[in-house]
């Protein structure tokens, strides 16, 4: 029997049992769709994190007070805060820390901002001019806070784009923050999300002004210090320098009793990255198992088919089908069910890839590789699980097969 006839005969076998064939393909269909979707979701998450790493740069370090005081730090400002402007000045010294290029102290408070009739509540940070470098941000219009603004305790504010938009404020506008009037001197470029809060909904004022009128704490204490190493390759030595300097100035003898904590921004993100990868692998494994179950479904149906069609097999043998002809016929049926299921699964997976981001906040990025692998695995599963039933069909003795009715 030539291959074309074999293929035709296999397809006729499937067409003869439409409902059953459809149900069989469903197993493969959902398996493939699940693999494509889960890998797509994982890929999208991974892309987001990669983009954040890229936008932040890998040279950012954050110094925060010791972990024991983390929870109380915003409420009991001053007493619980172990970081001071002295630390900031020490870190800013090129002699102490040659590999640190920017040192930005931060104090923060959530404040209500009023501009004309508009009212908007956001996180107000007090910092210095290094804030821009440490956060890898740029100013879209106007200027940023300068050193002289700090000295002058200037009532000037730089707004994130979302905040500015919500307040209807532009450069030169007047904004009242906690009853104190400020002048908008700059608007930041959009960042498209950073860390776990939007990087576009914020306000930055000179830290001296913030300590005076907003946070009300000691003029010497800061909540966090953002450090930027001179480059990605000097992050390690910048970390060492900052750690050593702070241990010395805080009188701590070793890292165990340090009252501060230095974190690499990139390490936080790479942790998030590896968690995402693990989750993706986990989900994809579950999906792959469902693909395997789909394959077993194909085998099950093919076995039923061989049993049910024993008499057909006998007749085919009587009119001249060789064992090889029957083996190929049943393999074509199994493989066709799997490949059709695989193709429909790809269609469903792609559809889900469009619909999921449309109706939820979950992003899906579908790449060619998982699609190709899923279809290849589906076809392979169909062939492998089709071999046993097909071999059974081929081995049937014609007289026994003819007797079955």
């Amino acid at each position, binding site marked *: 029997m*030539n291959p074309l006839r074999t293929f035709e005969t296999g397809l006729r076998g499937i067409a*003869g049992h439409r409902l059953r064939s459809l149900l069989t393909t469903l197993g493969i269909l959902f398996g493939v769709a699940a693999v494509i979707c889960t890998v797509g979701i994982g890929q999208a998450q991974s892309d987001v994190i990669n983009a954040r790493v890229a936008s932040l740069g890998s040279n950012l370090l954050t110094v925060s007070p010791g972990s024991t005081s983390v929870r109380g730090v915003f409420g009991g400002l001053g007493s619980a805060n172990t970081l001071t402007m002295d630390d900031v000045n020490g870190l800013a010294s090129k002699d102490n820390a040659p590999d640190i290029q920017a040192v930005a102290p931060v104090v923060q408070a959530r404040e209500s901002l009023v501009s004309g009739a508009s009212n908007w509540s956001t996180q107000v940070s007090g910092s210095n001019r290094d804030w821009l470098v440490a956060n890898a941000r740029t100013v879209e219009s106007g200027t940023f806070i300068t050193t002289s603004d700090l000295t002058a305790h200037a009532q000037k504010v730089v707004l994130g784009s979302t905040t500015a938009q919500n307040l209807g404020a532009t450069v030169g506008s007047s904004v009242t923050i906690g009853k104190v009037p400020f002048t908008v001197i700059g608007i930041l470029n959009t960042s498209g999300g950073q860390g776990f809060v939007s990087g576009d909904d914020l306000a930055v004022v000179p830290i001296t002004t913030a300590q005076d009128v907003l946070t009300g704490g000691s003029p010497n204490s800061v909540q966090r210090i953002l450090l930027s190493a001179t480059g990605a390759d000097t992050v390690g030595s910048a970390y060492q320098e900052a750690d050593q300097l702070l241990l010395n100035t805080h009188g701590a003898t070793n890292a165990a009793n340090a009252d501060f904590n230095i974190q690499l921004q990139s390490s936080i993100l790479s942790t998030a990255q590896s968690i995402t990868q693990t989750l993706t692998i986990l989900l994809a494994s579950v999906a792959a198992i469902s693909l395997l179950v789909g394959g077993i479904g194909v085998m099950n149906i093919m076995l039923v088919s061989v049993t049910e069609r024993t008499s057909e097999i006998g007749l085919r043998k009587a*009119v001249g*089908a060789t*064992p090889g002809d029957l083996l190929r016929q049943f393999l074509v049926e199994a493989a066709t069910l799997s490949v059709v299921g695989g193709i429909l699964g790809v269609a469903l997976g792609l559809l889900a890839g469009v619909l999921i981001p449309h109706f939820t906040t979950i992003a899906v990025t579908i790449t060619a590789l998982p699609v190709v692998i899923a279809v290849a695995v589906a076809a392979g599963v169909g062939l492998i699980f089709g071999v046993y039933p097909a071999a059974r069909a081929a081995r049937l003795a*014609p*007289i026994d097969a*003819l007797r079955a009715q």
Partner: protein
Amino acid sequence: MAADVLRLESVSKVYGTGDAAVHALDRVDLSVQQGEFVAVMGPSGSGKSTLMHIVGCLDVPSEGRYWFAGDDVSRMTENELARVRNRRIGFVFQQFHLLPSMSAWRNVELPLLYRNARDRRGSAMRSLEQVGLSDRVEHRPTQLSGGQQQRVAIARALVTDPDLILADEPTGNLDSGSSREVLGILRDLNAYGRTVVLITHDPNVAAVAHRVVTMSDGHLQDDVAA
């Protein structure tokens, strides 16, 4: 003198081994010549089904030789036997054995699929015409009467232009009218030169043949010309 289509020489078929061994066929000799119409009679258990399986190359003898159109079938491999069944033997079964999902002409075409023949539809049509079913080519087996189904089966047996038509109780599932019709077709085929071997337990059916042989307990008992 016409050539032998088939010749069995001391053919035995044993099922099982040792004490449980059953001699379904015991040293059977039989030859059928080109153009003969032979009926194999016998009650159930007499070995006539086993004889039919061996004659039809569906099974191989335990002992003895079987020559089909000059070839020693008893030494053939499974694939070679499939080729002999495909090209030289046309089967007609008691249960018709038509594939229910296929139309009449698709059923008739089936043996041609296994020999890569050309113009399979044309051959199937001519074959259906011979059994008087030209107006039923697109019908499914379930849309045909028992007699019509058996005629489709005969058309399928004819389509490869075989050396032998082997009919196993072809009227076993038919009413008397349909039986006469089917036997009439077999007789006509024989009249045009086809060799026919008919297996039956019914003496009335066997009566259409020119020659009747009777199986009993694995032996071919008598061999009388009708």
